[in-house]
């Protein structure tokens, strides 16, 4: 039973998909085999039905091509005004995406999904517009013909001989909630075509006439039918998976297609796509970067990039694998990722080469074990219908070749010197050494040149007849041939070693760069610091200017202050789009490619945390998917770090809130107690006097009144301390430091306490030569009053209090000591905490000493308590003495 139940992960994925689908708009595609089958007509009819049902329908963009019956259907439907774009003097009408988003109908009609937008539009392709509509929750009806489907593109081209450049990724059709096939038998379509009912652009009439042949139409119709059937199939598979109906499909199929620099790789990728789709399996396109590949010409490298991009567009995961041998790297990766089928192209090497070096296919088959190897014919195709990678022309640097010539000349010179003493074979060695040097330093081309030049020089200078290229002894020809081959082999090997080292270095450098950044990020706190590090690393590794945008208030994005370039409104718009859609956009992508920088979303597990903008010094530096992936890895690291910092901040905020809550509670209990006690005494005493009037004797009356006054003063001290504490904590406290004599401040503190000191012996020890000390006298007086008040509260009446002041050059120390019971051991520091209270009898909110600490610290001093060996406790505080004391002269 267990085995039949759906895998929970799969179910969860289904549920998520379902949820996402509910928020998103629904896409219905009217799918046809060719122009003229009546897709637009069918779409409009369907829209009218929806409208009749009361749905808010808007025609976003419909091309009627002047057909009256189609135009009639438009009657009564709301039509969104088209956007007009000036392009090289021509006024182009385009679908107005922003207008549609603002209008927000329930259903919008957008004809011709494969259309390429005019330059300057937000997206390069109309299908991207449609995706954005769906993402924002608008339902879309659209039309597309089979020849525009990316994975069928080459098949169609082969059937009809017409290469269609406007393509739509298969994923769009897969995402569509409904695909309706608009079918018309080829004969009927041909009839319509003959009657002129099929629209033809003027310039393409001849091509279309070739296109509309019965054979073509039958083939296209079959393709469309099959594509729709595949879709139905896929739907059924989903249904079965959902309902756990048996194991119909071998579980865990995974395809790996091997991409190379040959022009037919694109075909291979499309074939793999169709196969993966048929199997319902994920697929991976891999490019193995062997050292030999590193020295490929630029156009071959560009082709690899194009092919990988195509694979990505078709829904593949793409990887670049470093390795010595293609077959080994592929198999290792395949094992690692549980790949079940590997697809490779038919070997393009000539037979002799295959026999000599062995073919990749042979090696793969030999090592494949249980992995199936599919070999697909490697027919060439005309052009690859993918956006070509633009690249600047790099002027060829001739200096390595000059060096090659120079080194051969040097070798010739050395050989000339050696020639009287050595054999010809030794001279050849001299030349081979030269070839090795050139290969090591300057690469393949110059080393091949060196090999040829060496043979020529040898012949010219050292083989009789001298100083001619003529050869007297035919055996020398053999010598030359061998030398040339050896020279080529050496140069090949040397270059390969060099390239391997370079490849290893660059891989290592990238890994090291990422590692360095992660390590630095891991040891950093605070979003600002994190971003500074990330921006620095990204900027160094990708040779770019970097900005970061963070979500600010009211859902806007604000550039982070540490960015390296300024964003104008346009660029900010791109960044906002990236943030909202969580997809890269801008330079080098298909979305808003007109931007000056590439923008990547910073996506953390809890959602997007910002946008990374990268403006490379060379605008094409980031075109390679590998670079983009690397950049995405950096972006991910950064996003994770930001989220980590945010979480830490939130945690500490929560901690602070808890702490505040705790403080507030103790403040409330403490203050309410300390306010109520004196109020109770006052109310009690006063009401006693009022009630009993003359019955009280004079002495009792006086005692009661005195207690009212004392409690009033106590209340005053409490309120005073609360205010003082608030000022300290809010940072509103400003020190007014001036030079004061300590004895003066001690004196005024004592006089402020006045009568409360009655019955106490206060001993002051202040040396007569005590210097003036910079301080805020009002606050330091408060410190002394609080310390004395504390001593009065916690020591028995009549016990002495001692005030001792001392000073060094750098600080003055004041000590207030009593002869009371002292502090409980271990609580010497706790007494300075807010709301700490000694024994319950003391009264007071436990703020006095906390205020002392606040004031002393504000002065840059220190305050502490210590129990005295002879009994009692001493509170000591220091006040630093800095600056020049005033003098009386002047």
């Amino acid at each position, binding site marked *: 039973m267990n085995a039949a139940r759906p895998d929970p992960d799969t179910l969860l994925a289904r549920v998520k998909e379902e949820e996402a689908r509910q928020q998103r708009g629904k896409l219905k595609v009217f799918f046809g085999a060719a122009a003229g089958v009546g897709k637009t007509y069918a779409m409009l009819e369907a829209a009218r039905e929806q409208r009749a049902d009361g749905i808010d329908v808007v025609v976003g963009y419909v091309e009627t091509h002047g057909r009256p019956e189609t135009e009639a259907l438009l009657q009564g439907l709301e039509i969104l005004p088209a956007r007009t774009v000036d392009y090289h003097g021509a006024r182009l009408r385009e679908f107005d995406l922003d207008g549609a988003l603002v209008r927000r109908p329930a259903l919008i009609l957008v004809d011709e999904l494969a259309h390429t937008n005019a330059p300057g539009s937000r997206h390069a392709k109309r299908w991207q517009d449609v995706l954005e509509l769906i993402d924002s929750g608008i339902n879309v009806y659209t039309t597309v013909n089979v020849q525009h489907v990316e994975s069928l593109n080459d098949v169609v081209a082969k059937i009809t001989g017409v290469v269609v450049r406007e393509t739509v990724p298969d994923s769009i059709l897969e995402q569509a909630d409904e695909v309706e096939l608009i079918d018309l038998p080829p004969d009927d379509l041909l009839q319509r075509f003959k009657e002129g009912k099929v629209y033809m652009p003027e310039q393409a009439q001849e091509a279309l006439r070739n296109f509309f042949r019965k054979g073509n139409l039958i083939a296209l119709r079959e393709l469309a039918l099959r594509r729709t059937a595949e879709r139905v199939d896929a739907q059924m598979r989903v249904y079965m998976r959902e309902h756990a109906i048996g194991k119909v499909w071998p579980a865990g199929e995974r395809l790996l297609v091997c991409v190379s620099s040959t022009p037919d790789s694109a075909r291979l990728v499309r074939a793999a796509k169709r196969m993966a789709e048929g199997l319902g399996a994920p697929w991976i396109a891999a490019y193995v970067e062997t050292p030999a590949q590193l020295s490929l010409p630029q156009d071959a490298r560009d082709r690899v990039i194009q092919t990988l991009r195509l694979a990505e567009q078709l829904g593949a995961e793409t990887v670049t694998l470093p390795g010595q041998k293609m077959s080994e790297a592929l198999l290792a990766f395949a094992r690692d990722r549980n790949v079940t089928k590997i697809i490779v192209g038919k070997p393009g090497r000539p037979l002799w080469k295959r026999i000599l070096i062995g073919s990749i296919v042979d090696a793969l088959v030999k090592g494949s074990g249980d992995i199936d190897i599919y070999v697909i014919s490697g027919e060439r195709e005309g052009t690859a219908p993918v956006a070509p990678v633009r690249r600047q022309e790099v002027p060829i640097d001739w200096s390595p070749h000059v060096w090659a010539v120079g080194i051969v000349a040097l070798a010739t010179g050395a050989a000339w010197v050696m020639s009287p003493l050595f054999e010809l074979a030794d001279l050849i060695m001299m030349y081979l050494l030269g070839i090795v040097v050139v290969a090591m330093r300057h690469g393949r081309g110059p080393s091949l040149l060196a090999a040829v030049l060496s043979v020529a020089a040898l012949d010219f200078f050292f083989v009789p007849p001298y100083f001619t290229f003529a050869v007297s002894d035919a055996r020398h020809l053999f010598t030359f041939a061998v030398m040339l081959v050896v020279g080529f082999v050496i140069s090949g090997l040397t270059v390969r070693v060099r390239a391997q080292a370079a490849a290893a270095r660059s891989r290592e450098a990238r890994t090291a760069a990422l590692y360095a950044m992660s390590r630095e990020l891991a040891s950093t706190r605070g979003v600002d610091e994190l971003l500074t590090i990330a921006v620095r690393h990204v900027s160094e590794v990708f040779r770019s200017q970097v900005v970061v945008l963070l979500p600010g208030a009211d859902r806007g994005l604000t550039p982070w202050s540490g960015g390296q370039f300024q964003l104008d409104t346009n660029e900010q718009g791109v960044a906002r789009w990236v943030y909202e859609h969580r997809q890269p956009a801008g330079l080098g992508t298909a979305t808003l490619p007109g931007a000056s920088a590439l923008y990547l979303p910073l996506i953390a597990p809890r959602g997007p945390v910002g946008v990374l903008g990268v403006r490379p010094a060379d605008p094409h530096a980031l075109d390679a998917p590998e670079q983009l992936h690397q950049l995405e890895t950096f972006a991910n690291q950064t996003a994770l770090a930001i989220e980590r910092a945010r979480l830490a901040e939130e945690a500490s905020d929560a901690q602070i809130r808890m702490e505040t809550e705790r403080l507030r509670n103790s403040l409330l209990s403490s203050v309410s107690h300390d306010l109520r006690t004196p109020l109770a005494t006052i109310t009690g005493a006063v009401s006693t006097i009022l009630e009993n009037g003359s019955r009280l004797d004079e002495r009792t009356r006086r005692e009661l009144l005195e207690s009212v*006054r004392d409690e*009033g*003063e106590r209340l*005053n001290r409490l309120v*005073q301390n609360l*205010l*003082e504490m608030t*000022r300290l904590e809010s940072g509103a406290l400003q020190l*007014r430091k*001036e*030079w*004061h*004599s300590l*004895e*003066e*401040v*001690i*004196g*005024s503190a*004592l*006089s402020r306490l*006045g*009568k409360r000191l009655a019955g106490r012996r*206060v001993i*002051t*020890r*202040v040396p*007569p030569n005590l210097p*003036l000390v910079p301080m805020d*006298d*009002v606050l330091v*007086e408060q410190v002394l009053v609080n310390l004395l008040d504390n001593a009065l509260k916690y020591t028995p009446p009549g016990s002495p209090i001692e*005030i001792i*002041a001392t000073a060094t050059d750098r600080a003055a120390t004041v000590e207030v000591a009593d002869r009371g019971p002292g502090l409980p051991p271990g609580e010497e520091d706790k007494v300075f905490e807010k709301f700490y209270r000694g024994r319950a009898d003391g009264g007071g909110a436990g703020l006095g000493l906390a205020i002392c600490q606040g004031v002393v610290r504000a002065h840059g001093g220190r305050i502490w308590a210590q129990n005295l060996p002879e009994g009692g406790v001493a509170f000591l505080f220091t006040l630093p003495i800095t600056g020049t004391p*005033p*003098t*009386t002269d002047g």
Partner: protein
Amino acid sequence: MAEPVVVVVEDEPQIRKFLRAALAGQGYRVFEAGTGEEGLIEAASRQPDVVIVDLGLPDIDGLQVITRLREWSAVPIIVLSARGQEGDKIRALDAGADDYVTKPFGMDELMARVRAALRHAVPADELAVIETPDFTIDLAARKATRQGHEVRFTPTEWQVVELLARNPGRLITHRHMVEEVWGLKEAKTNYVRVFMVAIRKKLEPDPAQPRYFITEPGSGIRFLPKGVGHQL
């Protein structure tokens, strides 16, 4: 001598109530005002001997009342201030107030201030001897004696001592003293402190527990001929 007239400018009725009770009980004629504007009218019409002004008034600032009063009158002004308003208090003294009491205050304290304000300063040319339990200041002979020994002062020290001695019980602000003694307009209050240390050493029995020359933090010095704890 007729009963001295006191104008009380205070917005709190409860405080006005006990001020009136206490002042009337001591033989003063009391006129009350609840706002600053009223206070200015009362001060102009009643010809008071002392004006008591609360700094926190509903209409105009107590500080403004003082400034405007000083435009035409030299009547002694005592300010009622709350603690935590040290800045306001000092501004009030600078604006021309003579003395202050910090809320909450005991009536004994306020009465002492009022009496000190009413007592005319000993005129500079009048020669008098001021005796305290610990020392004697002879303004005529320009000398002081402590326990039968003459105490020697530098000329500036003497100027400070004389200024304080001629105004017993009154607050002498640092600013006022600097102006009187050194003839400076700027508040070089450091001078005062340096001199007070020297003067206390010469006259106070225990300079660390001064009894006669009491510093009011942030504002000035008060000379109490009978020592601290004894009202005038």
